[in-house]
């Protein structure tokens, strides 16, 4: 059995045993969005206007919730040291961790999003584009989040610090994701925005595993 599948099964088994985490993320996502109609008033046109942005911001914050646990358990019980010392490339371990994080956070967010589109009265013609931005954007959250999670291992108030470090770096993702929906509504087509998001995903995929692996080595050194 290859190292990848062994690691992946281990991560998935751990994630399944704590499946409440995923539900908490979804619960936060839904509640954060649902607060807005109360905050700004339930006028349908206004909700349709702010809906995509609100949903994306809520997804960003919800993804942050589970971010600090990406390496925390392994760091605390010492298995991270074994993973660093093992002959398997640490970059591969990071990729598996990120994949698991996306499967337990990003994917549930994407699956819940249509429900919130309905509740926020998001126009039907941009549903598909917004779902595409979530498909391209949420892996970037997990990838950049892994850097922050590795950097803040063992820090005081690591969870809050993680959000402070990672959220500013995620602003471009938010801009182009929400911009894609607006571009369709204004009749410009979302191709440019989607390609930029795809570029960010590829860039993050190529670079962040190395940075995260280096940060993990520093954390257990």
């Amino acid at each position, binding site marked *: 059995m290859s190292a990848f599948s062994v690691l992946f099964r281990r991560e998935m088994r751990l994630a399944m045993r704590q499946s409440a985490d995923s539900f908490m993320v979804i619960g936060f996502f839904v509640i954060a969005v649902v607060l807005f109609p109360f905050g700004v008033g339930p006028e349908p046109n206004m909700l349709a206007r702010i809906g995509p942005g609100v949903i994306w911001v809520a997804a960003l914050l919800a993804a942050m919730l589970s971010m600090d646990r990406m390496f925390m358990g392994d760091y605390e019980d010492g298995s991270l040291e074994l993973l660093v010392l093992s002959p398997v490339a640490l970059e591969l371990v990071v990729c598996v961790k990120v994949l698991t994080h996306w499967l337990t956070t990003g994917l549930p967010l994407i699956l819940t999003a249509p429900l919130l589109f309905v509740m926020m009265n998001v126009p039907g013609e941009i549903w598909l584009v917004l779902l595409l931005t979530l498909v391209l954007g949420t892996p970037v959250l997990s990838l950049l989040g892994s850097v922050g999670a590795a*950097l803040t291992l063992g*820090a005081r108030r690591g969870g809050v610090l993680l959000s402070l*470090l990672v959220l*500013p770096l995620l602003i471009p993702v938010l801009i182009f994701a929400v911009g894609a929906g607006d571009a369709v509504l204004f009749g410009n087509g979302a191709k440019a925005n989607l390609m930029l998001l795809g570029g960010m995903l590829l860039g993050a995929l190529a670079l962040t595993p190395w*940075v995260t692996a280096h*940060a993990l080595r*520093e954390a257990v050194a």
Partner: protein
Amino acid sequence: MLHYFANPTRFQRLSRRVEPWLLAAMLVCFGAGLYFALFSSPVDYQQGHTVRIMYIHVPAAWMALFCYTAMAVSAAVALIWKHALADVAAKATAPIGAAFTFLALVTGSLWGKPMWGTWWVWDARLTSVLVLFFLYLGYMALRDAFDEPGRGARASAILVLVGFVNVPIIKFSVDWWNTLHQPSSVLRMDGPTIHPDMLTPLFLMAAAFQFYYFWLVLLRIRRELMVNRTRALRHRQASA
């Protein structure tokens, strides 16, 4: 060269000798720059006297980028060669860079109110500089978040290098997007488009800011080295 100054005593001796000169150069440049900027430069035909804010705003914005680049270079040197002084330099630069970024944002805002009619717009240049400010704050927060100082130093060095992606975005944001912020008029391929009468005070002020930075950063590095030395002596005393 790199390792010659890694010796703290040698560095302190040199920096003590350089500091008065930097201070003098800074005072001269500030004096001349402020005179030209406030009294002896022409009033802009559109902006009136408001144009004088530019002589603070533009050098501060340059320094915000310069400080971050200096931090990134120091962090890279500290990570690759385990150069202790480079790490101290990065730490000493961070608050100065954050202050310059804040100054650029505030003066820009003060200029924007009479000129654009608003304190703040969400255009690409302003947003990316705001992100730069958050990166400075994040660096300082991460650096202080660990009980073991070495761990904070290494973690924050990696963060600085990751955040460096923002620096070219800030520089080219006015060219890539149609922004309210005007495109660059000094550092461009076909030469500056500003009249020499305005360029003189601008460069004098930029030089003054630059000297101020080097003077302050040397002072802060020396202070940091003394703090480290005191801590080491205390440890030795406690363990003896």
